[in-house]
């Protein structure tokens, strides 16, 4: 859908394909890689400066869309917490035969616990399928942005980008 981003709020797959940091199907076959859903030219480059492998480039002017060299990307996830727009996640297509793994940024309470089953959600926040939490990670460098790793059915590989927020305990 054209102009999805400016009407619905989230980018459509067509709009995402314009981003040089949105992987093609074959890029996913090597293992976990970063995915940047950033399709507008805004002055911002922490993704570039955070990458230890030099896999992300923005260059000058810093409004350039980020580009990922998927050969260099190891899927380490440093950029996921570094992005101020929370627009990056890491996806691993090869996690297991039927399952994929996503590591996404999360800044809400309560946090899920490792082993929890949660609702894996799409770009609209709609529930897509179930997800299992395998890692909840916080580092000083992440500056309060928590990284959550969730396993979900490969069937929904492209649609899942996050999890539904958990209700606060009364």
């Amino acid at each position, binding site marked *: 859908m054209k102009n999805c981003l400016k009407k619905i709020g989230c980018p459509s797959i067509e709009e995402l394909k314009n981003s040089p940091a949105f992987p093609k199907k074959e890029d996913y076959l090597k293992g976990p890689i970063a995915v940047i859903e950033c399709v507008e030219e805004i002055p911002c480059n922490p993704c570039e400066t955070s990458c230890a492998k030099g896999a992300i480039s923005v260059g000058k002017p810093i409004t350039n869309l980020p580009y990922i060299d998927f050969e260099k990307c190891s899927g380490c996830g440093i950029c996921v917490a570094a992005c101020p727009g929370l627009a990056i996640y890491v996806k691993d297509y090869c996690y297991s035969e039927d399952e994929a793994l996503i590591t996404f940024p999360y*800044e*809400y*309470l309560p946090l899920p616990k490792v082993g929890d089953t949660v609702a894996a959600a799409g770009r609209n926040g709609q529930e897509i399928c179930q997800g299992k939490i395998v890692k909840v990670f916080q580092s000083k460098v992440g500056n*309060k942005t*928590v990284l959550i790793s969730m396993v979900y059915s490969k069937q929904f590989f492209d649609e899942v980008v996050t999890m539904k927020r958990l209700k606060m305990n009364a």
Partner: protein
Amino acid sequence: MGRIIEHSILGSLEEKKMVKIYIDGRELLVYEGEMIAAALIANDVNIFRYTKHKHSPRGIYCGIGRCTDCVMVVDGIPNVRTCITPVKDGMIIERQHGVGKWGEKDD
């Protein structure tokens, strides 16, 4: 509407000294030094005054001391901007009607 005890970015709410204030006679325990408006809203009081002609209920609007929608009678003095005035132990706060009346307390 309640306090935010735990926050993903701001952390846990600090333990602070509590003081007693009175809103239209009702006693509340609130944090020392917090803004009157915040203390009231935390305790589900969100109507602060009634206007002169139509008696319309008013609450906070700008929250930073510019619009005067939040004014109440505080310790006898009307038209106090509650969003930028901190609470004190024993403070008496009343919903204001219209422009209020000057109380007997001297300044």
